[in-house]
């Protein structure tokens, strides 16, 4: 528990990165919310999908929680503070576990404003109208956003702990999701049920024929987390800190 406290203190006492990420995230969320509401209110009747759109705008936070997870692991290597971290806690898997805990907390902190802001703005903008209402389905989507963000933060952390280099992590994650998976899906369609991108969609409750069920998606992501977590532990344990 004390290692988790130390990891959270690291984030809290060098907050520029976190603040930068939060501000970038909020800017995108704000822009998306305003665009969505402006477009919806141009019509005489609000589109039926508006409540769902408002509930899912915050899903953009997943991009930032992935990045945050990676940074929690790689920043220490970049600044050399990993030496002191491993001196304080030489059993390195404990450090990874503490960082995973910190990544979970950070993901929650990143998602909260991203889901609250659209809800609050929509409440002010169209809250009084009969054709706008947030219900159980929307709250479930918001809850799924928290879960999805937690999972991708862990993925970012494990990839970061394995690779050490921030730029390498960003290139790998973006390359994987934007190029490798679509290419793999096109070449071998049978793999689509086991791809990270689609599994995240399943966790978030995305719509579409090819999106796996929530349970299947959770199982796929759990498998990825297991493999990536094991890889992170093995590589971190074997790594010489020179």
């Amino acid at each position, binding site marked *: 528990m004390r290692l988790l406290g*130390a990891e959270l203190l*690291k984030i809290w*006492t*060098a907050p520029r990165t976190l603040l930068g990420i939060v501000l970038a995230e909020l800017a995108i969320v704000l822009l998306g919310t305003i665009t969505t509401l402006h477009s919806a209110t141009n019509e005489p009747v609000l589109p039926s999908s508006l409540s769902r759109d408002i509930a899912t705008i915050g899903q953009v936070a997943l991009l930032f929680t992935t990045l945050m997870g990676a940074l929690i692991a790689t920043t220490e290597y970049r*600044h050399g503070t990993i030496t002191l971290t491993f*001196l*304080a806690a030489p059993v390195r898997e404990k450090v990874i576990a503490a960082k995973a805990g910190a990544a979970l907390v950070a993901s929650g902190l990143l998602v909260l404003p991203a889901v609250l802001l659209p809800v609050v703005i929509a409440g002010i903008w169209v809250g009084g109208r009969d054709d706008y209402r947030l219900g159980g389905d929307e709250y479930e989507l918001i809850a799924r956003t928290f879960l999805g963000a937690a999972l991708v933060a862990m993925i970012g952390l494990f990839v970061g702990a394995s690779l050490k280099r921030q730029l390498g992590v960003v290139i790998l994650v973006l390359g994987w999701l934007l190029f490798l998976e679509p290419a793999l899906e096109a070449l071998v369609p049978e793999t689509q049920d086991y791809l990270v991108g689609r599994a995240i969609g399943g966790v978030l409750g995305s719509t579409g024929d090819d999106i796996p069920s929530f349970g299947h998606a959770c199982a796929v992501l759990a498998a990825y987390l297991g493999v990536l977590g094991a890889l992170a532990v093995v590589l971190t344990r*074997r790594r010489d800190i*020179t």
Partner: protein
Amino acid sequence: MIEVDNLTKRFRKTVAVDDLSFKVRDGAITGFLGPNGAGKTTTLRIILGLVRPTAGRATVKGRLYRELEEPPREVGAVLEASDFHPGRSGRNHLRVLAAATGVPSSRVEEVLRVVDLEEAAGRRAGGYSLGMRQRLSIAGALLGDPRVLVLDEPANGLDPQGIRWLRELLRSLAAEGRTIFISSHVLAEVEQIVDEVVIIHRGKFVVQASTAELVARVAGGIRVRSPQADQLRAALDEAGVRVASSDGELLTVAEATTAQVGEIAAAKGIVLHELVAESSSLEEAFLDLTSPESGG
């Protein structure tokens, strides 16, 4: 006790540490000396569990570092002076370390006082001078009030006043019975404070001895000048004293004292114009033992 036992570390084709063995005595200040690239830092990092040895082992109190119950409370370490997040203040850097090691945060202020860094503690460590960073590193090492300190070139970046401050600090810590293992490639930094030294060169053990023993081993001999050099040489040979070299009126005598040489000359009525014991410092001993000609 720190014990290094047949330690070897290879980085691909480079052998950084080569079958190294030595012991660091409890309660003493031991210097760990060698030229740059000798393998000191690698050895220290293996002792601290940061680098995995290719062969052999290094233990503290008979255990691997990672097997110690409370490592930072038993061993304090100063490694590189740049191991800080530049955006974190010195105080917060120590607070993070204190949180990780389970040390109460009140201890942070205590160690800041010890290293005389209270005024700058609120500033971002990225703006610190190298000397201030070294002080902060030392503060971090002292957080857990450990009985063993492992210091890798702690005087790097310190000005002469800082070096004096470091010496006094280490002396006071040693006086409390702590074991201090301090590496350096600048002998003048540690010569005045170490009880004994371990010298390595190209990853290999060269010698472990007290500083006095070491200086004696490579003492420079006696320089004696006489207008009767040939007679003096003969007298010394007769007395069983070896003349290491001669150059006109100048002789260099090994393994003898000035008193012995003076008495031999006086007994034969030989005039001496100069009789000097060549002094040797730890620096000279170090250079002698790690010179390419030494094969060390």
